[in-house]
């Protein structure tokens, strides 16, 4: 059974335009605060270790996802990581073509569960999984305690 009346002239249909507007501030959280402070102050990347199962998490979490216990130890990530997967992007978030393609990658670090999705600073033609890369960090004066303090990862 459906409506007993139906408009067939599409010009008679109305739309009500509007937007949903809101501003947000996201705090880094307890674990995030330590991570971003260390990144800002010393340019170091820290992970967190679960005291129960020994899993090391990157980025660090307040709790171990498996044991559901508070992670208590901070561990510095190794100097280099490895690219697990890459994507070469040609359009921006709204679908507009980019002037030049960007390379994005998932980078993992030995001994740590997780990793970072970040810019891969290589020529797109050279972008591939398996590359050994290290984080390239902004100078101290430009660091604010955000993921963008890392410019990207380079070989």
């Amino acid at each position, binding site marked *: 059974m459906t409506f007993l009346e139906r408009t067939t002239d599409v010009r008679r249909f109305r739309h*009500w335009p*509007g937007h*949903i*507007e*809101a*501003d*947000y*501030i*996201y*705090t*880094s*959280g*307890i*674990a*995030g*605060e330590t991570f971003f402070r260390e990144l800002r102050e010393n340019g170091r990347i820290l992970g967190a270790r679960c005291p129960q199962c020994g899993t090391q998490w990157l980025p660090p*979490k*307040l*709790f171990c*996802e*498996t*044991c*559901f*216990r*508070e992670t208590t130890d901070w561990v510095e990530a190794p100097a280099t990581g490895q690219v697990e997967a890459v994507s070469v992007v040609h359009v921006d978030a709204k679908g507009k073509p980019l002037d030049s393609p960007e390379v994005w990658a998932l980078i993992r670090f030995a001994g740590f569960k997780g990793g970072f999705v970040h810019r891969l600073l290589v020529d797109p033609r050279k972008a591939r999984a398996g590359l050994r890369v290290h984080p390239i960090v902004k100078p101290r004066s430009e660091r604010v305690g955000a993921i963008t303090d890392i410019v990207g990862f380079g070989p």
Partner: protein
Amino acid sequence: MRKVAVVGAGMTLFRRRLQETGKELSFEAARMALDQAGIEINEVDAVIHGTAPDAFDGVHMKGEYLADGSGGARKRYMRVFTGGGTGVFSAIAGWWHVASGLADVALVVNEEKMSSCQPHPQSVFAYIWDPILDRPLKPNLVWIFAMEMNRYMTVHKIPYEDIARVAVKNKRNAVGHPCAQLADANITLDDVVNSEMMAWPVRRLDISPPSDGAAAVVLASEDVVRKRKMKEHAAWIKGVGWCIDSTMWTDRDLYFPEYVARAANMAYRQAKIDDPRKQIDFAEPYDPFDYKELHHLEGLGLADKGKAGLMTREGVTERDGDFPVCPSGGLMGVGNPIAATLGIKIGELYWQLTGQSGKRQIPNEVRTGVCQAWGDLMQFGSVMVMGT
């Protein structure tokens, strides 16, 4: 259907702004509930997460986002949302899992991080309104409460003081709650009556604050309670009920919450209660505004229509009164992190029934309690009856 008990509960502080991320808040409350219950995460069969609109935290698909913080990674997980009704409804969803036999142990975690929304969560509350009928008028959320409160007061000729007394009672009760945001031992009726007028008849002190917070409860089947010898800290779920009305709120007479009454009847029938005022010892109705406690007491059948105000006036609903209402301090005193009010509704019933409420413990013996939450555009009611 199997018998289900709450065997542990936890909650974080309720504050205007907490530093933890939503995941961390969920973890803190869930961890505490598990520790209190003596249950390990690998013994949890299902995780139910209750949280209000994604627009408050500002994370789309918030249920999925909060899953790991709620202990839900690689588990049976669902996120439920019924507006302000989520505080009780998520526990009902948890009950489904255990009563049906699908889970022996269920963890229910509710979280809210409203402080993310700038400048005030009010900004996104506005999007509840219908885009064509209501939003062009640029309504403020307080208006709709004011209109409901006005209708309630006018139909029953309730003096404002009777309503303001609820704010005084609850903010004073909240002094006994370690997580309370707005506890005030010294608040007087004059303070409320003279507080700033927001939208007549609602004044500033009639409203509960927006809050960040999380709460969690652990549900277990009768078998688990017996095998693990948890009887001492178990409170049984006797009846559940829920009901929603249409969003066409302008077509309804707002003086009585019909949908709360229907939800209550469903829960009472299951709990074999036919005289709620006599067979129930205390209540935690939803009180985002002081008049709502009275409105809901009537919807729950615990007071005759128009008469709930008398109960406050006569001291019946004080903690040491004949029928304590909101011994936790309610949303008015403890705070309103929407879904996380689980901690002061289900949580409070649990703690009162198992004698763990500390300074808030009701002096008379309590064996049966009812809690209720309410949500959406004056639409949704969820009710749970618990007992020993």
